[in-house]
């Protein structure tokens, strides 16, 4: 259950199991890493899914402007980076600070499985969604078996 705390309570000591939430995300990241992850700096909760005809990478970047998000595809490596600068509103005294500034970059080696031409990226409601079309080689194809 969620503990009932005051707006003014300090310091913050994870009464909500926030750490558990992050551990869950970390696990997702590690699973993705085992498969295709290359390098990363910083941190943002991300999820990499494989669908029939595409890969979908979703990264949580609340409050990040479009101009601070970069998606590159080079030599079969997809690199996603984003930066968030959290600034104190002027004239206010901070009472609780949990939302940090973040700067992150992750690369995924997709090799010949991905089709750069069919890659699109969309930033919506604080989530960056990158859709990477699968190359023909990566798509499952059933071969009809003919009786001889």
């Amino acid at each position, binding site marked *: 259950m969620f503990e009932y*705390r005051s707006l003014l309570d300090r310091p913050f000591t994870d009464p*909500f199991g926030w750490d558990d939430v992050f551990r869950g995300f970390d696990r997702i990241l590690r699973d993705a890493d085992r498969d295709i992850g290359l390098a990363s700096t910083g941190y943002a909760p991300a999820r990499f899914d494989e669908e029939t005809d595409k890969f979908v990478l979703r990264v949580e*970047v*609340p409050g990040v402007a479009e101009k601070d998000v970069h998606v590159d595809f080079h030599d079969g490596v997809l690199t996603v980076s984003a930066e968030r600068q959290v600034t104190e509103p002027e004239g206010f005294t*901070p009472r609780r600070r*949990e939302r940090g500034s973040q700067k992150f970059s992750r690369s995924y080696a997709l090799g010949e499985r991905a089709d750069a031409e069919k890659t699109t990226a969309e930033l919506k409601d604080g989530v960056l969604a990158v859709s990477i079309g699968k190359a023909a080689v990566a798509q499952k194809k059933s071969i009809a078996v003919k009786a001889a």
Partner: protein
Amino acid sequence: MLGITKSKNDAARKADDKTFAAPAVDVYENDNEFLVLADLPGVPQDGAEVTLERDRLVLQAPAPGRNYRREFAVPPSVDAEAVSASLKAGVLTVHLPKRAPYKPRQIAVRTA
């Protein structure tokens, strides 16, 4: 006895099925208001619910794969009627203005 234990376990299991997430929150204060900022990535502009009942501020929003929820105790200085909230780019902003008696007032000192 056995029955009670069983129902307790069922309740616990049910709670586990639903994934709640506590969003990261910043709280600021100045003379006129409290300002609450919460990260709610994946929640559309009209998808968050902010309620203030007595002294409890509840922020909640469903998002793909989880439900965001967080509660706070609000000081009595807050003017419940004047609370406003907006959501943009996955960040919820809640303004909680203070009632007049709690705002600092400059008293002019007159020379006699």
